[in-house]
């Protein structure tokens, strides 16, 4: 269609009205490890596969789920290094907001500012879009919230969502299993089952990561021991 002739420059629209670099960024996300999030009635859970390139890698040193503030956590699918940069920027923005207004940043505000950063990288010279999609889980005055942010800078609020390799199976599974009045523990079980769906090999506490936030408004990454407990309950 002539699209390929426009794929070199980020800031040029193709004749079909697309920015081809962003499409490619979404492909990078789509080939990343599966991650998902579920919003329960009293909290949010996010989870991801943690497949390491070799058994020699020290899996305790790898942490894919990160804190942005005490009550907001984030997970990604796509390129790890891009995620690190975004996390750093988001943490700084949250801290600046806190200093200016002396209140913890609302989840929507932080998501919007992060999305703005990602959009800037789609409209500047000499840079490329981030090759990650983020799932932001938070609990503030408006209750539990789950947002997905894409490389283009668009963001959506979800009741449950998945990203990465196994996205279509995972989303179908979630559509069947999701209920409005789910509690946080049920949501964690559902998250594990969803990850199990497309999992290659044996699922264990060493190759998945789960983060949750409840009504106490404190985001926590579960320890491997806690994940083992939940896995046992699911069996």
């Amino acid at each position, binding site marked *: 269609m002539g699209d390929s002739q426009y794929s070199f420059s980020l800031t040029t629209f193709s004749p079909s009205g697309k920015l081809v670099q962003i499409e490619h960024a979404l492909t990078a996300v789509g080939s990343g490890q599966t991650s998902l999030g579920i919003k329960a009635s009293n909290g949010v859970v996010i989870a991801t596969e943690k497949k390491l390139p070799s058994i020699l890698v020290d899996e305790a040193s790898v942490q894919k789920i990160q*804190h942005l503030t005490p009550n907001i956590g984030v997970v990604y699918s796509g390129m790890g290094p891009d995620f690190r940069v975004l996390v*750093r920027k988001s*943490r*700084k923005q949250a*801290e600046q907001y*806190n*200093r200016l207004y002396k209140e913890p940043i609302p989840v929507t505000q932080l998501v919007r500012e992060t999305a703005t950063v990602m959009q800037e990288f789609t409209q500047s010279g000499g840079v490329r879009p981030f090759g990650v999609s983020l799932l932001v889980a938070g609990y503030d005055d408006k209750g539990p919230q789950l947002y997905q942010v894409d490389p283009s800078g668009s963001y959506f609020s979800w009741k449950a969502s998945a990203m990465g390799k196994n996205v279509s199976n995972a989303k179908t599974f979630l559509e069947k299993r999701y209920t409005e009045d789910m509690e946080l523990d049920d949501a964690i079980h559902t998250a594990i089952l969803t990850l199990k769906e497309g999992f290659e090999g044996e699922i264990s506490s060493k190759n998945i990561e789960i983060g949750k936030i409840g009504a106490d408004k404190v985001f926590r990454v579960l320890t491997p021991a806690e994940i083992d407990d939940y896995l046992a309950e699911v069996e």
Partner: protein
Amino acid sequence: MSEVPPKGGFSFDLCKRNDMLIQKGLKAPSFLKTGTTIVGLIFKDGVILGADTRATEGPIVADKNCEKIHYMAPNIYCCGAGTAADTEAVTDMVSSQLRLHRYQTGRDSRVITALTLLKKHLFSYQGHVSAALVLGGVDITGPHLHTIYPHGSTDTLPFATMGSGSLAAMSVFEAKYKEGLTRDEGIKLVAEAICSGIFNDLGSGSNVDICVITKGNKEYLRNYMEPNPRTYVSSKGYSFTKKTEVLRTKITPLMERVEITEVGEAMEE
């Protein structure tokens, strides 16, 4: 001609102007200083910080119960003497930087980190940020106590005092401090030192605030002692025996009542 915003750093232009005005005889406006007695000491299990609670604006007491012990990190607190706005702003800023740093490293903040961030900031402002601080905390390397002067120099000490009441407080420490104090002995000594400042220095007064920091725990004892209670309010209340008699009543309305009658058509929109 477009205005280029300054690239950063302090612009000393106004300081030159101020010096010139003072030489010409202008009286500089007085700012809210904290007068102050602030102290810190290291005891067996950690650090104890103490402060008075009077904020002065020249000869007037501006705040009878202000908070001079500022939060820096869960394991680090900082007492501030000097200009109240400066101590608040600088401790707030460094506390924010420390929090960001904790997220990046995943570790608890160290006292020496807070010390370095503060002294670098104060030095770059060449003493114009009038904040004299007593910084104390317990981190992975143990308990630490430092003093920081407005120009950016620092000391590391087992016991320290700052502020206009520092000599009064230091005399108490020099007489009674010893290594390996217990928690209660330490709190008693700090309270004594602050009281010495409260009673002997005009710039310090009101109550005693204390903060005890140990490994993994902190206690902020706000208004630990109140040696200056307000006694002028009568506890009995006031009763007036004779009611005022009403002799005559006359009401004068301040505005004339105006009647509006609509004539003609309303204006077209």
